[in-house]
């Protein structure tokens, strides 16, 4: 098995090549077969690595310059094993789902080739044993994200969304690269084993190391959509829904969390960075949950939900709970993918309608029963209602946050708290509130779309149909995982550990938050009287709040003013002044004009009088003779 590791990222890459080069010429069935078989094969190979022994393979030596050498090395240990299974497993089923969802699209082969390329890049990222190779995968998934978001590029908005994703990601990549440089100067190696092996405690609080880890976190913010680089994710919903499920819910956006866990050995030595990560993540989680409660596009709600849950993962990691964060990553992959795919089924059934205010009472429609069931399972899972998956991971995170804030033991709100403890207390409270809001907005979505009276026009009603076999299979598998995934994870993790005081408190509080959110949604949206509408339209305060929140706090507009417009202005000035005036006019046209001028003057020498030539020749010879004579004397 050790020598076959390279097959895991290679097989999807071969699928990319086949579908990309020949996709137009082979039948749709062949495209689907190649496109889906490759991820499933990788999944099979990944299952084979479950034996428990860490594996590593050096495929080839890539860069060797002086004392700097980087090899294309793949490594499978406990951490990457889980990611590998999640990526290939969930990814394979999303590929399967896409067969039904993208049926009839004219870019069918292109879609599958891009999706396979993405799998390949993500697998390289996960299995890389050094930072440079990880960055190759990092950039690769960024590229595929751009390609897939702008998949239906004939509509300019989609292409713009793809551009936005790529550019914002680039800002993060810049931080990643700088972090890599600093790490190399500090340690002389970019190999992950080499970076985690030192046990010298003298590194604690080292300034350069702190700066390096902060820069790496900036990279993670770009990829995993935390403040301030989250603005691309809601726009990324312009892509096909399976893409949103795979890339922007289950795998790519979790790359940031994965990277930090990989380098956990370094982050432990920089508590300042960990605090920063905690604050940013807590703020992001709460903030995006607030935005989600006012959105009306089904995919946008799920997008903001993703950002919020990513904040959860980062909070867990920042508190030192690396495996807790990965556990939540796994369960989140299950239920978020499920939610996105069911939303896709809804959109597919309603022939493109994505606005939930235009839906309503869908559970009563013929053919929507199955979709309603899986959607409900996903919603229960994400809200943290036991015994579904989300409950276990969320509970663990809250417990971890709480214990991290109680460094000396003691009760909540006791006297003599240090700044650090207060900070983490606030983060924990923010996580609690976010849990409540998560349940709230998810069930708001369910109640508005599936309950109440139907707002759909007649033609859309006629179009409603059951999803076909590929979509159904994927949904069933993911629903199953969302139900049982948590129990197994929790059981494996907490085998033999007794619940302590903090754990009981958090258990109660998380249950309160989950059910409280559900109840709140129920109260506000089920009865005939529309409280929310009254609040937001009658009072001035209500109107203002609604306007701000539903416009995402105008962050996009602020970015536009502060960053985008000055850059465009700079580009325009550079074009006008530097490119046109200086380079074109002064240098290119100017040199042409100068040579024309001089040659015009020089042309006058050709008088055609032959004698003149001879006279000039004689003068020249005399001059040479003078020179020679002077040298002799």
């Amino acid at each position: 098995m050790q020598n076959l590791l390279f097959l895991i990222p290679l097989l999807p890459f071969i699928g990319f090549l086949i579908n990309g080069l020949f996709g137009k010429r082979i039948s749709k069935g062949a495209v689907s077969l190649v496109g889906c078989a490759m991820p499933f094969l990788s999944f099979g190979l990944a299952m084979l690595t479950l034996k428990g022994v860490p594996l590593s393979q050096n495929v080839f030596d890539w860069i060797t310059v002086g004392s700097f050498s980087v090899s294309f090395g793949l490594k499978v240990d406990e951490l990457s094993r889980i990611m590998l299974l999640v990526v290939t497993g969930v990814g394979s089923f999303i590929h399967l789902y896409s067969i039904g969802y993208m049926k009839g699209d004219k870019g069918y082969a292109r879609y599958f080739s891009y999706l396979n390329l993405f799998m390949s890049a993500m697998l390289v990222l996960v299995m890389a044993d050094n930072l440079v190779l990880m960055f190759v995968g990092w950039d690769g998934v960024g590229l595929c994200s751009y390609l897939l978001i702008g998949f239906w590029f004939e509509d300019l908005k989609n292409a713009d969304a793809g551009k936005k994703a790529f550019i914002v990601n680039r800002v993060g990549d810049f931080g990643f690269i700088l972090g890599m440089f600093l790490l190399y100067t500090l340690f002389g190696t970019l190999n992950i084993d080499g970076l985690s092996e030192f046990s010298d405690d003298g590194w604690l609080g080292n300034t350069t190391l702190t700066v390096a880890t902060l820069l790496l976190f900036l990279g993670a913010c770009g990829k995993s959509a935390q403040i301030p680089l989250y603005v691309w994710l809601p726009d990324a919903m312009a892509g096909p829904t399976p893409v949103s499920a795979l890339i922007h819910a289950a795998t790519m956006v979790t790359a940031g969390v994965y990277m930090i866990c990989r380098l956990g050995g370094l982050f432990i030595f920089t508590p300042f960075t960990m605090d920063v990560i905690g604050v940013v993540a807590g703020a992001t989680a709460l903030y995006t949950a607030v935005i989600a409660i006012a959105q009306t596009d089904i995919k946008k709600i799920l997008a903001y939900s993703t950002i919020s849950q990513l904040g959860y993962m980062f909070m867990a990691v920042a508190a030192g709970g690396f495996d807790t964060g990965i556990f939540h990553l796994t369960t989140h992959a299950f239920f978020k993918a499920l939610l996105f795919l069911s939303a896709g089924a809804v959109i597919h059934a309603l022939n493109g309608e994505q606005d939930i205010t235009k839906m309503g009472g869908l559970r009563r429609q013929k053919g929507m029963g199955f979709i309603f069931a899986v959607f409900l399972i996903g919603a229960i899972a994400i809200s943290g209602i036991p015994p579904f998956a989300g409950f276990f991971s969320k509970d663990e995170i809250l417990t971890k946050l709480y214990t991290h804030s109680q460094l000396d033991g003691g009760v909540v709100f006791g006297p003599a708290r240090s700044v650090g403890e207060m900070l983490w207390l606030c983060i924990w409270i923010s996580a609690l509130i976010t849990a409540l809001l998560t349940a709230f907005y998810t069930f708001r979505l369910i109640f508005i779309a599936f309950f109440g009276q139907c707002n759909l026009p007649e033609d859309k009603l006629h179009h409603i149909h059951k999803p076909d076999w590929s979509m159904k299979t994927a949904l069933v598998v993911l629903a199953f995982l969302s139900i049982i995934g948590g129990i197994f994870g929790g059981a494996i993790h907490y085998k033999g550990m007794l619940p302590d005081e903090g754990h009981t408190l958090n258990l109660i509080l998380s249950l309160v938050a989950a059910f409280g959110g559900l109840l709140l949604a129920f109260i506000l949206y089920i009865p005939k009287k529309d409280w929310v509408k009254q609040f937001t339209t009658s009072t001035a305060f209500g109107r203002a709040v609604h306007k701000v929140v539903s416009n995402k706090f105008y962050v996009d507009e602020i970015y536009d003013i502060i960053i985008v417009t000055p850059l465009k202005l700079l580009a325009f000035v550079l074009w006008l002044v530097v490119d046109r005036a200086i380079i074109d006019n002064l240098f290119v046209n100017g040199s042409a004009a100068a040579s024309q001028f001089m040659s015009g003057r020089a042309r006058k020498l050709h008088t055609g009088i032959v004698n003149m030539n001879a006279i000039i020749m004689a003068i020249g010879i005399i001059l040479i003779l003078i020179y020679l004579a002077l040298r002799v004397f």
Partner: protein
Amino acid sequence: METNIVFIVCAVVSVVSAILVVTRRNPVYSALFLMLCFVAFAVLFLNLNAYFIAAMHMMVYTGAILVLFLFVIMLLNLKKEELGKEYGFGNKLLLSFLCMLLFTILAALVYGVGFAPAKSLPSRFGSIEAVGNAMFSDFVLPFELLSVLIIVAMIGGIILAKRKL
């Protein structure tokens, strides 16, 4: 190489006739003064122990080249009006200054050099045997190339002067 009367006479004659060559308007006069110049040269060569060369000089230059010149002049048969304008006096003055400058430089280069007294000559120096010996042993290649050059010039002359190519 003593300064003797032969040298002085020949030098004067050649210089004077050379000046006359370049200043006459009628090309026939120029050709005849050129012949006088050549004769002076031949005598000068004799003074310098170059007997064979003197004979060759007379034969080639006055016997062939000058005759060719006169043929062409007669062939063209130019009347006085057809001869064409000449440059103005000012131009000619400037150019004469230029040529005097050239002469001065060349003379200055040579003037200070102190030549050793002439070596004693082997017997029959400059005779036809001596020149023939040198030419056909050391300088065979230039000799052969010269014959090729003459053939080429002959062909070139014929083709250039044809009425119809």
